[in-house]
C-alpha cells in the first residue's frame, strides 16, 4: 500500500507509476461506451422506423424513452441485479436504456426536418420508400442524428464511472478505489480522464459529422454580375 507524502491533493508519482493500469481502464471505458452507444443506436433506429411508419406509436415510444431516462442509473443498475447479476450485462442494459430517449428524439427530429419538397421530389423521381429513407432522408437528417449520438456518447461516458459500484467501471474503478481509501489522487485521475475522454469523443464525432455532411458548410457565395 502506498502512502501519500504530505497529504498532497494530487500525488503525481502515484499516477506516473501506473501507465499500464490507466491504459487498461481506458480500453475498458471505451469498450463499454462503444457497445452501449452502438446497441442504443440500433434499438433507437428500429424504434424510429416504427414511429415513422406508424405515427401513433411515437407517443408511447417517447413516453417509455423518457421514463427510462428519468430513472436514475444507480437505481436501474440495482433493480436489474436480481435478473442479470452484477456485471457487464446489467451495466449495459442500464446504459443503453439511457441513450434511447436522446437518440430517438434526435432521429425523429432529423427525419422530420427534411423539407417535404425534397421527399416529394424523390418520390416523384421514382425512389421507393426505403431507398428514399436511405439515400435522401438519412443523409439530410445526419447532422441532427449525429448531434444526438454526441450527446448520448458523452452522457454514457460519465455514467460508465458509476458502474464501478456494481463491479465494472473503466475510470470509475479509480474513483471507487480513491473513495474506499479516502485518497484524492485516483478520484481526480478518474474524473479528469473521464472528462477528457468525453471531450475527445465529442470532438471526434463532430469531425465525423463535418466530413459526412459537406453540403452544410458551403453557403451561397457572392455571385458574379
Amino acid at each position, binding site marked *: 500500500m502506498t502512502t501519500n507524502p504530505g497529504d498532497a491533493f494530487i500525488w503525481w508519482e502515484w499516477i506516473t507509476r501506473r501507465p499500464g493500469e490507466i491504459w487498461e481502464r481506458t480500453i475498458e471505458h471505451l469498450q463499454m461506451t462503444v457497445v452501449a452507444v452502438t446497441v442504443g443506436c440500433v434499438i433507437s433506429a428500429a424504434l424510429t422506423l416504427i414511429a415513422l411508419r406508424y405515427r401513433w406509436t411515437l407517443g408511447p415510444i417517447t413516453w417509455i424513452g423518457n421514463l427510462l431516462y428519468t430513472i436514475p442509473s444507480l437505481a436501474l443498475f440495482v433493480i436489474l441485479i436480481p435478473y442479470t447479476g452484477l456485471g457487464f450485462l446489467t451495466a449495459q442494459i442500464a446504459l443503453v436504456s439511457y441513450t434511447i430517449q436522446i437518440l430517438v428524439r434526435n432521429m425523429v427530429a432529423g427525419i422530420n426536418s427534411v423539407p417535404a419538397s*425534397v421527399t416529394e421530389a*424523390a418520390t*416523384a423521381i421514382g425512389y421507393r420508400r426505403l431507398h428514399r429513407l436511405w439515400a435522401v432522408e438519412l443523409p439530410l437528417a445526419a447532422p441532427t442524428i449525429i448531434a444526438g449520438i454526441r450527446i448520448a456518447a458523452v452522457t454514457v461516458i460519465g455514467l460508465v464511472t458509476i458502474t464501478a459500484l456494481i463491479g465494472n467501471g473503466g475510470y470509475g474503478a479509480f474513483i471507487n478505489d480513491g473513495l474506499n481509501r479516502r485518497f484524492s489522487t485516483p478520484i481526480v485521475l478518474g474524473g479528469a480522464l473521464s472528462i477528457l475522454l468525453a471531450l475527445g469523443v465529442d470532438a471526434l464525432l463532430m469531425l465525423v459529422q463535418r466530413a459526412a455532411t459537406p453540403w452544410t458548410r*458551403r*453557403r451561397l457565395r457572392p455571385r458574379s454580375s
Partner: protein
Amino acid sequence: MTSAAAISLDEVSKVFPGSVSPAVNRLTLTIPQGQILALVGPSGCGKTTTLRMINRLEEPTAGQITVLGHDHRSAKPHELRRNIGYVIQQIGLFPHHSVRRNMSAVLELLKWSPDRIEQRINELTDLLGLDPALLDRYPSELSGGQQQRVGVARALAADPPILLMDEPYSAVDPVIRKHLHSELLQVQARVTKTIVIVTHDIDEAITLADQVVVMAEGGTIEQQGTPEELLAHPATEFVREFLGRERGLRRLGLRTVGQILRSPSRSSVPADLEPEDLAPEDLARVTADTPLREALDTILTSGQTRAVVCADGQKIGFITIEHIAEALRP
C-alpha cells in the same frame, strides 16, 4: 397533332379522407401526344391534385387514368414515375447532392453506366443553357432561376415522354420567366414531349400551351380549348373574368405579323403598290416574327398608323392598324 392520347383521365375524382367535397370532381381530359397542356384556375381548385394523380403520388378515389395506352394502375408506381418527369412547385432539389448528382438522380435509379450518365449530363447542360461551372456546386449555391433550370433538367434527364410541371416559374422574376418560357419552347421543339403545366399566370398559359384547361372551384373543368378559342370565345362569365380584361391584346400576342401578311384576307393591301412607295424612311420597322401585340405597340409608339415589315434588311411589305384589327375579326 393527330397522334394518340398520351394521357387520358376518365371521370377521375379525388376525395381526400376527412373532407366531404371532392378536390377533383369527375374530371375527363385527354392530352394528345406531343402537346403542351396548361391547367389554370383559382387557388385550391385541384390543379396540383390532378398532376399528382397522373404520376400516382395520389390515388384517385374514382375514375380511370391511362398513361401511354396503359391503365396506370398496371405498372408499379415507382416505375411509372421514372417515365414521368415531375417539376414540383418548390423545386425540391436534393440539398446534399451536387447539381450534377441532382441531374443524374433518375439515371442512377435506372442504373445507367457512368459514361452514359456523363454524356447525358453534358447534353442536358447544353439543352438548358446551364453554365457547366455550376455542375459541382450544391443547390444552395445557385440562384432561384438556376435552381429552376436544374429542376427541369432533373425531370428531363431520362428523356421521359411525359413532363408534369407545377407552377415551375412562379418563383422567378418576369424577365427570367420570359427567358425560361422561350427556353422551354425551344426544348420542346427539339425533343417533343407531352407536357402538363400548372400555372396561375394566364399569359404563361397562353404563351406556352397548345391547349388550355380552365378549372373551377371544386375540381371541375370550366372550359377547354386552344388559347385562341378561349380568348375569342370564353364559354362562361367565370372564364371571361379569369382571362382578364385584355383578352383582345392577349389574342394579338398569339399571332405574328408574318401570319397575317400571308393570310388571304389581306385584301386591303393594294397589290400594285411597291413596298418602297409606301414606306417612307420615318416609319417604324417590324419583322415577320413580331407578335401582333408588339407590332401594334410599335406602330402606336411611332405616332403613325402603319409600320414597315422587313426581312433580312429588305422591306417586304407593310402593316396597318386596320390589318391588326382585322386579325381579331372572326
